[in-house]
């Protein structure tokens, strides 16, 4: 459905995206993971026909994204990463404008989405909060029932409850056979919806993997508080990967070996335990490091 073949874009400062190749099948939810500035948005701009590749091609539904942009756009819904709407109109007028430009006839799904996301669509756009604008953006991306939906950092700005609603909408659409391409800098965001994901770093793809593989590769940090320092000293002898310890508090890295982790900890008096929130680079640290060494 979506095909990137050696897609390369070099900017005057030497940065850009290099030789990006992967395919997204019909009905698949594909995640595009990378830290900020890695080239996610640049890749999406090529899919949307906003940029001309230096080399290689991007195509959706067998239409070239640059040469046949308007044919491509018939079949896609798009949620930009930065939400900036046209000024001087209400959310409703804005959605009507896009519907008009698409020649849309059926407004049932649009009304349904507005209902579900629970927001007042008649508010002038300049008075909307970030989350509210995000909702308008989501309606704009889904309302015309497109075959392919491209989302750039979709849940940023949504509160956790709305993120849940959003994930439900994505999963429903997936059931209808829609294809998704969504970028994110946070693994948990992708984890819940995607079948496969590509990881991009400094403009290059470093992995395209099934989401279960990625889950087993991810490295989680746990902050565990024990009762005494002597227990901490004992724990240091265990096979667990202990990053640091300070008083009764121990930080343990776990990657796949959850069972060992639980069994070891069961020997001690655990007072509290937290999952340490990490950046993408930290989650896939050994991945990023190993690839970095090769180059």
């Amino acid at each position: 459905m979506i095909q990137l073949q050696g897609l390369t874009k070099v900017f005057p400062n030497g940065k850009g995206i290099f030789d990006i190749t992967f395919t997204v099948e019909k009905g698949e939810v594909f995640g595009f993971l990378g830290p900020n500035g890695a080239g996610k948005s640049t890749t999406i701009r090529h899919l949307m026909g906003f940029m001309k590749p230096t080399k290689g091609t991007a195509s959706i539904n067998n239409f070239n994204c640059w040469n046949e942009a308007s044919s491509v756009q018939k079949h896609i819904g798009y949620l930009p990463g930065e939400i900036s709407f046209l000024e001087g109109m209400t959310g409703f007028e804005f959605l009507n404008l896009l519907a008009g430009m698409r020649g849309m006839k059926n407004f049932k799904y649009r009304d349904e989405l507005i209902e579900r996301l629970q927001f007042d669509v008649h508010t002038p756009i300049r008075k909307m909060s970030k989350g509210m604008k995000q909702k308008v953006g989501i309606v704009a991306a889904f309302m015309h029932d497109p075959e392919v939906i491209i989302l750039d950092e979709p849940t940023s700005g949504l509160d956790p409850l709305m993120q849940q609603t959003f994930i439900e909408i994505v999963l429903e659409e997936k059931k209808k056979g829609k294809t998704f391409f969504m970028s994110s800098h946070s693994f948990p965001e992708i984890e819940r919806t995607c079948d496969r994901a590509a990881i991009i770093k400094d403009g290059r793809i470093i992995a395209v993997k099934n989401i279960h593989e990625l889950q087993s590769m991810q490295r989680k940090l746990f902050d565990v508080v024990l009762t005494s320092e002597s227990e901490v000293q004992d724990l240091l002898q265990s096979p667990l990967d202990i990053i640091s310890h300070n008083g009764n508090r121990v930080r343990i890295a776990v990657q796949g070996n959850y069972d060992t982790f639980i069994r070891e900890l069961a020997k001690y008096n655990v007072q509290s335990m937290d999952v340490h929130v990490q950046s993408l680079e930290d989650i896939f640290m050994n991945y990023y490091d190993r690839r970095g060494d090769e180059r």
Partner: protein
Amino acid sequence: MNFALYKQMLKVHGKTILSYSIGSAFYLLLIVGIYPSIADSQAMEKLLKQMPEQWLKAFGLNTGMGNLTEFVAGEYYSLLFILILSIYCIMTANQLMARLIDRGSIAYLLATPNSRQKIAFTQALVLLTGIVTIVFITTIAGIAGAEWLVSDYSLDRSLFIQMNLVGLLLFFSISGYSFFFSAIVNDEKQALSLSAGVTFLFYCFDLVGKLAEKVEWLRNISLFATFQPAEIAQGNADLLPVCILLFALGMISYIMAILIFSKRDLAI
């Protein structure tokens, strides 16, 4: 063109267009309204005779106050008309493209199955609709005002309409390069300073060229030299070449703007 976009854009910019039109029409009516008191006063004529020739020429007063058409040409069309429409062209051209590109909101429009050419063309049409509306309402106001406010003096309708037509074409080409800058630049402020800068420079060249005989050649490179309302009012201007030039310049600017816009990279 895309009708849905055109309609919505007119709705957004309609207020601006209407207020410029009303402002322009009222000022013209004011000028028409004060004409009788000036026409009958000998003092004014005397005062003008004492002024240096170059100075009068620069401000379009060299034709004197002979009749209402000349008076309107000198008092309204050689300065305020130009000012009002320049500001409209520069500001609106900027808002129709550069602002949307700078803020990224054009992404929503481009994500619909309409080609970039179509979208840019529609935006250009919105800009032009505004110019035509402002000039049209001004023309109507002038004719109606002369008819009802100062029925003792007559406005030469044919010359007055010619004046407005050339003015319309002048702003067709000024809006053309404003739109061009607006469509090819990424930064809203840069686009604004380019089109405002070029327009200001043109105006200065024209003014300085009129004031100082030595640098009269400067007028040859100013777009404003093509629009001489005072001479049109006297009926001794050869308008056809000027009209063709202005029309061609405008067309080229718009076509280039649309073509470059449809081929460029957009970081949105």
